[in-house]
């Protein structure tokens, strides 16, 4: 067997036509969103710096297993919204709400 060594250096760089500060925020957010919005129509967002921590929280929550997300929602003030739902349904509802919150934070 031949072992071939490789190197890869990945830079997350600004590419959008907006101010330098927001370019970075938007670029990072877009990278985050690539994982949340698998599908033919990725959502374009511009996130303010002050919301960045919340974006990360939502992203981390979004990728947790269905059962974990469902449990969080059932223990929150939103528990009535998922009453009677399976874990899978509750998680789908929560993930949709995460995306909506991100849209609400967007400047576009």
């Amino acid at each position, binding site marked *: *067997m*031949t*072992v*071939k*060594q*490789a*190197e*890869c*250096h*990945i*830079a*997350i*760089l*600004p*590419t959008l036509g907006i101010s*330098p*500060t927001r370019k*970075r*925020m938007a670029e*990072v957010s*877009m*990278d*985050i969103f*690539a*994982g949340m919005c*698998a*599908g033919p129509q*990725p959502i374009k967002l511009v996130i303010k*710096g002050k919301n*960045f921590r919340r974006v*990360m929280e939502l*992203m*981390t929550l979004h*990728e947790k297993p269905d059962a974990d997300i469902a449990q969080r929602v059932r223990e929150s003030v939103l528990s009535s919204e998922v009453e009677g739902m399976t874990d899978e349904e509750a998680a789908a509802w929560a993930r949709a709400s995460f995306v909506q919150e991100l849209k609400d934070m967007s400047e576009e």
Partner: protein
Amino acid sequence: MASGLTTAERNRFLIERFKTLTIYGAYCTADPSDAASMSGKEATGSAYARTEITCGDDAAAGSISNTAAVEFPAASGGSHGLITHLAICTTDVEDADTAIASGILTASKQIDDGDQLVFAIGNIDVAIAAQA
């Protein structure tokens, strides 16, 4: 005046995304691009599989790198082609569009039957641009 994310915030992001979460390397014969589209670009068949990447406990100066060698399965029964890019994905399901980052290999590698692609410790690094 400098503008952009602080170093601490860049590091926090990198730790959240590349250490706290389980991430997988996926090698490709074409650029997954910003669209994170893996279909038709990721290697397939001949024992190819996405492989977990382990990153360090902390990110320094806005970058993070692998702390264990990433050893993909050796190609078996055929070629994986000329590998040009690596994507970092959130699942090990092949062809799923779950890439969160991607980059071009410093040098493309032809992976033929029996060849194994390995990234040594520190040879995958992800950086967020510093303040301008």
